[in-house]
């Protein structure tokens, strides 16, 4: 069972969470008219076999979005933090 550490609620089964996708992507600026950049952002993924930074929402707990480090080749989890803590940084998608 994949277990995820929620900064508010502690370590829980992954079934309490909803997966939210790659958290390392950089969203184009809202006023960007670069269609290529938007296509890349919405549709294309690195989809790495190895370290991955991803969003999860603790839907059956505090309902906060968090960022989790996980190795997709082994499911080993690393650090996790609230998504809002990295809001505004490059990579907050």
């Amino acid at each position, binding site marked *: 069972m994949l277990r995820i550490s929620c900064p508010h609620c502690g370590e829980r089964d992954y079934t309490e969470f909803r997966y939210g996708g790659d958290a390392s992507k950089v969203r184009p600026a809202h006023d960007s008219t670069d269609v290529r950049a938007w296509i890349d952002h919405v549709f294309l993924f*690195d989809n790495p076999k190895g370290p991955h930074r991803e969003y999860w929402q603790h839907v059956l707990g505090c309902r906060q979005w968090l960022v989790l480090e996980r190795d997709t080749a082994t499911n080993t989890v690393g650090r996790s933090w609230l998504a809002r803590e990295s809001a505004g940084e490059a990579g907050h998608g």
Partner: protein
Amino acid sequence: MSGPSNAPRFKRTRHSVISRYSALALVRRALTGDRWQRAWRAADPKPSYDVIVIGGGGHGLATAYYLARNHGIHNVAVLERGYLGSGNVGRNTTLVRSNYLMDGNTQFFEHSLKLWEGLSHELNYNIMLSQRGQIVLAHGPSQLDVLARKGNIMRLNGIDAELLDRADVMRMLPFLDYSPSSRFPIYGGVLQRRAGTVRHDAVAWGYARAADRLGVDIIEQCEVTGFVRDGERITGVETTRGRISAGKTAISVAGHSSQVAALAGLRLPVESHLLQAFVSEPIKPFLDHVVSFGAELFYISQSDKGGLVFGGHIDGFNSYTQRGQFPKVQTVAECAVALIPSISRLRLLRHWAGIQDMTPDGSPFIGRTPLTNLYLNGGWCYQGFKATPAAGWCLAHTIAHDAEHPLNRHLALDRFEQSNGFDEYGLGLWTYKQ
């Protein structure tokens, strides 16, 4: 649909030392004690090929076979990182069917089913096609309307489909839960009699043997580590067994599509997820059809050995582990018991996971890529097995002509930027992540 006839026309090449399988050959070996030859040669890579197919799964082997059989391109190598058929071709629930709704898919999957129907004969290899029929159940009147629409679309395309009412389903599947307290009451269903199951390992072995007989080199334990480029043109591959030049190169690696495409500098609209499959302990013949639950994604059939073979939805987050998570085992078991209460005490014998390359619209890619002479077959989500013959057939056509066949024109890699997403399920994009 134009295409070559299904008549087998095996060309004996100078490589081929493998005799045809027949009842006579069986008797002769029984009497003489002659050993069976290997089914395909253990080929060493040559310095150069006309076409290299990366991936020795069902799709890759079918591609090589149809390149030789339909297009006369025999100087072909299939490169497999592990052993042949070690990926998704042996990790599915072996179902074949052609009950698709959207124009494009309807014809593609029917073409695939027609190829399945002739495949044992064509390959001279028993793939054990069992057209036992698939019943998709409806648990409400509106769902039955949807199935009737799908059945009508199939029939308009010349595909068999029969609408079943509750009494029909009760007669054919007497062991389902018809009780008044049933959580998902059964209103009826739609039956495709030509749907069924195939012995999946035999698909890999049969295509490998038939391709080998046509001169294709099947090279196992050979991992592609890079592409050789001349500007925007791919001219070969770097492998763990050295550099191999190729006129054209095709990627057909299912769950690892992103990794291999990344070696060529391409990013794909793909995220890799796990789908589990399950086999129960064997029991006496019980389930004569393939049955699909209408209230959840759940499908079940019985193998020739007696085990119930079933599966559900993907685990819900991206992973390459090929090991499923337990909560999905529970969900699938709950579906099984909700549908067929009498199997509640059966023990699970095995379960495993395959890596599914999930795409935004749930449809795959077969076609050209932004790089010249590089082709992609991938993004099959969880419907790749039934597509094996048609995917190989279409990819071979696309490689041979450097142009898509009408059957795979809707599966272009750039369809999202063209706003041509192909959403068979009518759910919108990326729904499996929600």
